């Protein structure tokens, strides 16, 4: 990301790829393919679906793909910051999304949407700060820290909310937000796009994003360049938490309901999207645009499988197999190019 790429598409192309030396030119086609594995795969998948799957290329179906992509995509795009900062993942997004959804519906029913958003923001900040301080300041392992905050967060949510399912009124603003569409594109997809653009900018163009990438690449060297590393880690977790909050809003608004179990499985699904996008799980390298592509890939794939009437078991097998396949092709292409 060191190159000054002027357009978004160009940045997708160069995102996270080490600048190849002059001598690598000869192998540029293979490497080009390898670096863009997720783009190639997504395009091929969509092409195949358009040709072979009845009903895929219809407007209502496009809407469904967007609906699938939006909440998980917003979580994944945010969590990319934690992954790039070399902290594996944030398991507590499960609790964060559910908490935000319950607050969004539950509190707006009583005190209005603004109060709900305010409370949800505070809670998200709290999640980000607790996770971030434990990982960044106390140097604790992120997997266990976020596992603990998941326990604590879901426990508190269920304890306070009594675990009930919350509904918004049929004619409230939340419902309107959830139903709003521009042609086939739901508002939630635009929210995803907006969050992606903002976070892309934050990661690639701001000093904070720069510090996150540097920290993911070498923690010690980043600290010894005068960077406040605690702030970097807290920032990464706060961004993840704020994204999870927005995802909770989108999820709650879509169904106009909220319940503490609605985001089960989000942690690994988001991670899968990030990884398929090509962000390194060891930190330092990656981009939110890649994550967006990963999310689109998984959403399209799931959509295709459901359209084909494939059962749940086979869906899971296909997703798992494709994660491995996509990354294998990438690895093999890279190896071939090196030879």
């Amino acid at each position, binding site marked *: 990301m060191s190159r000054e790429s002027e357009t978004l598409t160009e940045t997708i192309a160069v995102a996270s790829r080490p600048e190849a030396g002059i001598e690598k030119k000869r192998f540029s086609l293979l490497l080009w393919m390898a670096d863009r594995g997720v783009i190639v795969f997504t395009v091929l998948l969509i092409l195949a679906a358009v040709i072979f799957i009845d009903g895929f290329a219809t407007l*209502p179906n496009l*809407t*469904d793909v967007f609906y699938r992509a939006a909440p998980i995509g917003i979580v994944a795009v945010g969590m990319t910051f934690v992954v790039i900062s070399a902290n594996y993942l944030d398991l507590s997004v499960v609790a964060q999304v559910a908490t935000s959804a319950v607050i969004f519906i539950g509190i707006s029913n009583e005190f209005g949407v603004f109060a709900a958003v305010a409370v949800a923001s505070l809670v998200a900040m709290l999640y980000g700060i607790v996770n971030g301080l434990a990982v960044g300041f106390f140097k604790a392992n992120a997997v266990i820290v976020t596992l603990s905050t998941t326990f604590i967060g879901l426990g508190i949510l269920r304890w306070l909310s009594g675990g009930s399912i919350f509904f918004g009124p049929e004619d409230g603003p939340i419902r309107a937000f959830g139903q709003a569409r521009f042609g086939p594109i739901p508002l939630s997809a635009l929210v995803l796009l907006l969050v992606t653009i903002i976070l892309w900018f934050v990661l690639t163009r701001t000093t904070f994003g720069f510090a996150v990438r540097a920290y993911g690449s070498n923690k010690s060297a980043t600290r010894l360049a005068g960077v406040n590393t605690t702030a970097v880690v807290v920032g990464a977790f706060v961004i993840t938490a704020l994204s999870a909050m927005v995802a909770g809003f989108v999820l709650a608004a879509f*169904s106009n309901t909220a319940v503490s179990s609605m985001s089960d499985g989000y942690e690994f699904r988001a991670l899968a999207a990030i990884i398929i996008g090509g962000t390194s799980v060891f930190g330092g390298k990656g981009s939110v645009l890649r994550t967006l592509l990963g999310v689109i890939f998984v959403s399209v794939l799931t959509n295709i499988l459901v359209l084909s009437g494939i059962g749940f078991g086979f869906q899971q097998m296909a997703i798992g197999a494709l994660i491995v396949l996509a990354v294998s092709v990438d690895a093999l292409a890279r190896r071939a190019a090196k030879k």
Partner: protein
Amino acid sequence: AAADSSDGGTDGAGAGDETFEVYALLPQGTDQPYGTTYLPPMQAAADELGINLTITNSQYDADQQASECEVAVAAQPDLIILWPAVGDTVRPCLAAANAAGIPVTVTNSDVNPEDQDLTEAYSGPDTYGQGVSSAEIMCDLVGGEEVGILVVNGLTGNSTAINRNAGFVDTIEANCPNVTILAEQPGNWNKDDSQIAVSEMLTAVGPENVQGIYAADDTMVAGAIDALKARGIDPASLYITSIGNTFLGNPLVVSGELDGTVFQSSSWDGENAVRVAYDVLTGNTPSPRELFMPSVKVTADNADDPSVAPEW
């Protein structure tokens, strides 16, 4: 086994104001809406009857529940109330309780027939029967017409989801084979998952071929109805049934969008789990073994009836 229940009592006071120690091994609690409204009546009944409840929640993990069962047996309570996480896996737990002389009553979803002799009583809905009732509503609505329907199931692998689906499918095959299941997907008990799944199934089979939808609970059927509306299809023009009669489902029945649902009372369920346990503890083993929750079919005719007022 029920007769010697007081032997295990920790503080054997007089027969009348005796307090009983009871473990309730549940697979859900405040993490699910049903469990949330199940627990308070259960606790209230226990307080009233002088039962000291220790409640666990295994979150549908059979191994977790088995371990909790070991804990319960080791603690030597007067009785164990069991809501199986996975029906097929509870026999060792029952055998262990039996061996320790602890009576077991079952709530919400029954153990397999071959395991029933190890339990004293069952109270709760007949999950298979609920599927049957929902199918019956569907068959009645459809009459002899050749129709295609979509099916939305609960969380994959979950006992309730499996039993309800079995009841529904068996009954459709037996009573109205003119109804064809065009597509089937899980909705994970979630409204949003169900909405997307139904919308995609509509795309897959063609909306014009779909005349009906069955969803395994009201939350998911609400999602299905939203999916229809989002496509500009009037839900009233389809045959739609589900199970639950919840706060979400009942108004849909009233408005005519949902044609019928099957009332499941979480408060009845929770309360009777304790009442049946109390009967066993005090030596009145119920006969017959099963106390079924009334499986009331709720349609536009009776949706306003106070006896089927939704609870969760």
